């Protein structure tokens, strides 16, 4: 009996499917469509099987190749990682369903292979316990993403893809340099090991390495001013890909930053520095989103803003702040992915990405618009949707420190929330209450595209009205990270 609750399966199975998909056209034309669904279906099951294990032991650690860490590459799934793995798997599963109806461009099997690879890379980034492995996962994700952004191969997507590629490649290199410098300083690549050994190093010794890692991951994680690729890439990519990029990829990169900061660079001053980045990201993302005419570009900038928000929550550097950050990550992942899926379905119907063309859509595509509205409300943090709980937590956590800096930050955050409300409400009222000049033939999105939207919508509604388990789980994850509990657990379990 194979123990299915093994983190390694989270990567191995989808990777197998990637190959399967790539060669599936040899035996069946349409198999490629459905294989990702199976792959991520299995992933969801594995992730769910991990839940009791993680809750029991606080951590699940699996090693490869029969060695013990730190020699071997290990996979660490603690509560926080599990949290993100579940989101990534569910999103992968749901978006795969969406793809079946959405993707009608050749070469399909390549798209599905890259798509599966993208999510696999993301999950890999999340659960890896090895710094170099992190780099590999990062590059796997990036390369898949470069390909997917340019998938349409039209003018815009190729340009966006190339820009993304150049910036991503630079970022990857910087990340690698940083990792290598850490390796040079500590002599190990295992995260837990690095955590212990780097404790002896001084601030100056680690700073450049950390900065390079931060910049490398920050490019993927859409931190200002490293995020210029994002507003180009998200609109250019197929909507299902934007959904993943926006919903979980940037989040995974931010997760990596959070992890590494927590492990090797847990200095109070650095959080001030990071807060500066977070606020800049928030401000520029939200303000830029306000001016957009292209709906996907608007959502992309909004992603930047949201990233800034939960990164800010992390930089508060308290259990409450981290809890807020994780809640906001859930909120953002679910809502923003759903929004991109809905918008994708709408673009198919409308045939344009211009906001002006969405006038009166609320009456034509009722179900889609309904879920669009819910997603936007949640992102704005309007009660009773989930975004309200997370925003409440973040602001509460921020004002636990009642110094001028925090109050100023809170004011900025709330002002930017107002800006966010401004553009979301502009869109919403245009859709629901505007009247189109000429009557257009617009139908509700096809069933295949609605199902994933509805699934995500119901997940959002469920956690909105019954947030307690999520809140608790986020709190546990946050306190584990804050107390560095997981290091001790990993040491115990991994037998280091």
């Amino acid at each position, binding site marked *: 009996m194979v123990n299915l609750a093994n983190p390694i399966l989270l990567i191995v199975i989808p990777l197998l499917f990637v190959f399967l998909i790539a060669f599936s056209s040899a035996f069946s034309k349409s198999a490629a469509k459905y294989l990702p669904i199976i792959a991520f279906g299995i992933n969801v099951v594995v992730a769910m099987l991990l839940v009791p294990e993680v809750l029991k032991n606080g951590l699940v650690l699996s090693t490869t190749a029969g060695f013990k860490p730190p020699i071997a590459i290990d996979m660490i799934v603690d509560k926080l990682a599990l949290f993100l793995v579940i989101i990534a798997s569910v999103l992968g599963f749901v978006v795969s369903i969406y793809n079946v109806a959405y993707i009608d461009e050749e070469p399909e099997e390549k798209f599905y292979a890259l798509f599966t690879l993208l999510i696999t890379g993301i999950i890999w980034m999340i659960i890896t316990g090895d710094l170099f492995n992190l780099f590999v996962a990062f590059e796997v994700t990036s*390369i898949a993403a*470069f390909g997917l952004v340019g998938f349409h191969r039209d003018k815009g997507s190729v340009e966006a893809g190339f*820009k993304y590629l*150049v910036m991503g490649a630079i970022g*990857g*290199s910087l990340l690698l340099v940083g990792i*290598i410098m850490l390796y040079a300083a500590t002599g190990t690549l295992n995260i837990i090991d690095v955590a212990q050994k780097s404790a002896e190093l001084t601030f100056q010794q680690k700073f450049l390495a950390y900065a390079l890692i931060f910049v490398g991951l920050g490019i993927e994680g859409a931190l200002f001013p490293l995020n210029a690729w994002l507003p180009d890439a998200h609109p250019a990519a197929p909507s299902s890909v934007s959904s993943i990029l926006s919903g979980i990829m940037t989040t995974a990169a931010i997760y990596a930053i959070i992890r590494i900061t927590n492990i090797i660079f847990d200095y109070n001053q650095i959080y001030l520095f990071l807060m500066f980045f977070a606020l800049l990201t928030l401000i520029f993302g939200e303000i830029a989103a306000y*001016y957009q005419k292209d709906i996907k570009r608007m959502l992309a900038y909004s992603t930047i803003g949201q990233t800034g928000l939960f990164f800010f929550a992390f930089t508060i550097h308290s259990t409450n702040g981290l809890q807020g950050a994780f809640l906001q990550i859930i909120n953002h992942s679910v809502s923003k992915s759903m929004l991109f899926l809905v918008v994708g379905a709408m673009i198919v119907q409308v045939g344009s990405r211009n906001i002006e063309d969405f006038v009166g859509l609320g009456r034509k595509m009722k179900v889609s618009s309904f879920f669009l509205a819910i997603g936007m409300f949640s992102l704005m943090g309007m009660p009773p949707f989930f975004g309200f709980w997370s925003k409440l937590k973040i602001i509460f956590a921020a004002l636990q420190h009642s110094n001028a800096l925090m109050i100023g930050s809170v004011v900025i955050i709330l002002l930017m929330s107002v800006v966010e409300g401004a553009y979301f409400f502009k869109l919403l009222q245009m859709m629901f209450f505007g009247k189109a000049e000429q009557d257009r033939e617009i139908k509700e999105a096809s069933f295949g595209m609605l199902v994933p939207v509805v699934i995500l919508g119901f997940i959002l509604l469920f956690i909105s009205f019954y947030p307690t388990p999520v809140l608790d789980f986020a709190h546990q994850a946050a306190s584990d990270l804050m107390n560095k509990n997981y290091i001790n657990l990993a040491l115990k379990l991994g037998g280091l």
Partner: protein
Amino acid sequence: MSYYLGSFLLIAIGLYTVIIKKNLIKIVIGLNFIASGVNLLIVSIGYVKNGTAPIFSKIGINPSAMVDPIPQALTLTAIVIDASELALAVAFVVLLYRHYGTLDIKKIRSLKW
């Protein structure tokens, strides 16, 4: 030390190329410079002067005289990744040339703010 300097020089040249040069091909080459620089850096970190290969090919080799094997393994992986990235980049350049009819990055800016 000179290896470090060399690798950082390579990276710097690459960054310079990426920022200053207008030609897409040159930018791709710049990326490659960076990648090479990084690879050189990795290998040089593991380098021990007058060291031997990290294999116990004969008895009596002092392990501390061995070159660190891990960076070499890493380099291999990195090279593979760089290669695939480069291939993708070149593919993009071809496509861009088809769409825009030019390789001048200044002219390829249909997407902005």
